[in-house]
């Protein structure tokens, strides 16, 4: 049986991708952000995930408003990045794991999630940058991308995202392959790009979220989507993926690392690592 070794979450600000491409990790602006990754890299070296499930959101590369899905699951052997229109270098394709994809799809549909199954899926910066942040040498494991709608309201609620995470955890732990799996969430924390409130950042709420994500993720399901927009910014709703990631870790949890830095571009950037040790079920 597969082992869910833990979860990671990290911001996916496009500017990070440009900084990586330009090797600016040690520049004054970037150093405080990139220096936060040591404990995450150490933990990854220890637990060595062989597959990852990546919870991210599309920013208008793959999906348009003609057909906007709530939750889409990749089921491809390979995922390509592509031109997003504003100059980020296009990444090499990423390897998929169709067997885990279909296992997750079967399991989640059985638990009454109404998925879109994607045998072709373009992944944008929100998928690519976190993969490069966690595996800067390019040796990332195969991935199963799960895309959340954060573009067009109604979004999936915090509670629905939490439940998806829980079901995903159960799906992973019931995968018959004897492999180590990690869940990665990308996006957030507080930021808002649009409107008179552009530049909105809410440190107090972010720190509360980081605490709850470690200790009591269920508490975050009390917020409505509009409350999340108000507290976290229009794009801060990307915290939905962080909630789902934390919810997936249903075993004995151990907080490995948190890092928080304001600002990266217009965003409060954060990093979170939680280890998960499966608790043998009583049956």
């Amino acid at each position, binding site marked *: 049986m597969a082992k869910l070794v833990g979860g990671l979450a990290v911001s996916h600000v496009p500017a990070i991708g440009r900084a990586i491409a330009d090797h600016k990790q040690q520049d004054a602006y970037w150093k405080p952000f990139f220096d936060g990754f040591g404990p995450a890299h150490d933990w990854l070296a220890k637990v060595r995930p062989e597959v990852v499930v990546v919870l991210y959101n599309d920013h208008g590369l793959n999906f348009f408003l003609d057909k906007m899905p709530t939750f889409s699951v990749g089921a491809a052997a390979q995922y390509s990045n592509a031109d997003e229109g504003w100059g980020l270098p296009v990444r090499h394709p990423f390897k998929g794991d169709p067997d885990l994809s279909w296992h997750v799809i079967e399991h989640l549909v059985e638990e009454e999630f109404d998925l879109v199954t994607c045998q072709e899926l373009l992944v944008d910066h929100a998928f690519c940058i976190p993969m490069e942040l966690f595996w800067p040498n390019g040796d990332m494991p195969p991935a199963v991308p799960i895309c959340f709608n954060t*573009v067009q309201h109604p979004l999936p609620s915090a509670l629905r995202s939490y439940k998806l995470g829980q079901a995903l955890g159960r799906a992973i732990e019931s995968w018959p392959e004897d492999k180590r799996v990690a869940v990665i969430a990308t996006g957030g924390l507080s930021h808002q790009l*649009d*409107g008179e409130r552009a530049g909105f950042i809410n440190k107090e709420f972010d720190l509360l979220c980081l605490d709850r994500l470690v200790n009591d993720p269920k508490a975050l399901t009390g917020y409505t989507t509009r409350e999340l927009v108000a507290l976290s910014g229009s794009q801060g709703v990307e915290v939905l993926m962080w909630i789902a990631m934390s919810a997936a870790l249903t075993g004995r949890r151990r907080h490995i690392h948190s890092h928080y830095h*304001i600002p990266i571009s*217009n965003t409060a950037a954060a990093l979170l690592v939680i280890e998960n040790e499966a608790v043998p079920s009583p049956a």
Partner: protein
Amino acid sequence: MTRSAPAPIPGTTVFDGAEAQKGYALNRMCFSFNDAANRAAFVVDEAAYCDRYGLTPEQRAAVASRNVLQLIAAGGNIYYLAKLAGILGLNVQDLGAQQTGMSVEAFKAKLQASAQG
């Protein structure tokens, strides 16, 4: 709109069904800018490109104005508008400065100040 309107969030447009309907043509045009050839076509003849996507007069005026708040008022969604901004050479901090009526430096300072919040 027939649903009871929830309390507004200051300075924030929630991109819901009403916005998604209103902004459809504009956002569809911006979505096309994922393709470099389309970006080039827009640059060569902006008016013809707006015609091709059936923009409303309000949307055409907003595109011509380069004013982000006006583009949002015309139904633009920031994820798609970002691709138009890319053509115009504006990054998200330029957009933030424009929308808040600040200089880019002042906007960056405001972001930095949030670290103390």
